[in-house]
């Protein structure tokens, strides 16, 4: 199980290979990549910055990975999140889940992303030329996370 933040670009091929290397039982791998869009509801943006809380962010990511393994009986989980300045189209977050069957791997990846967006201390700021604006939390993300509490 791996859960970390990094300032350097995420290499999806490397992360998938590392996930596969540790598998003994799995028949399914689901991976998710979150990307920086080049626009928001106001127009074009020029990249983002992601602030984190060193120590708490890593602990919360690891706890989330452990919860997903237990809840969905996953064989392996890998969560990699970028921090710092990130350009348009780059990967913000990469999640990989491996399980014996595909349903558990799909559910595990969806669970991790829904809870990550609600619980993990990370804050996004969008850049527009010389100015920048903090992204506000969305009620749809709260709703997505709450469905796992049922």
């Amino acid at each position, binding site marked *: 199980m791996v859960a970390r933040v990094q300032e350097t670009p995420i290499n999806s091929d490397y992360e998938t290979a590392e996930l596969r290397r540790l598998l003994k039982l799995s028949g399914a791998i689901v991976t998710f990549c979150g990307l920086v869009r080049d626009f928001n509801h106001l127009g074009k943006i020029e990249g983002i910055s992601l602030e984190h*809380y060193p120590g708490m962010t890593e602990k919360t990511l690891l706890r989330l990975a452990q919860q997903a393994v237990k809840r969905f009986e996953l064989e392996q989980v890998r969560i990699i999140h970028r921090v710092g300045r990130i350009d348009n189209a780059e990967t913000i*977050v990469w999640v990989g889940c491996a399980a014996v069957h595909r349903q558990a791997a799909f559910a595990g990846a969806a669970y991790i992303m829904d809870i990550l967006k609600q619980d*993990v201390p990370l804050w996004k700021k969008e850049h527009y030329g010389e100015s920048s604006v*903090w992204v506000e*939390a969305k009620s749809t993300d709260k709703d997505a996370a709450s469905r796992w509490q049922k």
Partner: protein
Amino acid sequence: MITVKCFAQVREISQTEEMSLSFHQNMSIADVQRQLCAQGEQWQKAFSLSPLIACNHIIVSENHVLNEGDEVAFFPPVTGG
């Protein structure tokens, strides 16, 4: 001593990334907030955002009672992913 850390909008508005406060017995998060608000209007503005509160990396409420050496953090709702 208590360490106070601020992140994102709370950091910008309070103009504080990290600071230390003297500890006293039965000191709560609410006491920390009152003490900081007395230091300047920027703290009143920062707390008007109703930030989330963490103590030693665990989310807590403002009623949480602190211990010597605790690390308290204030930050807005998260927006990662």
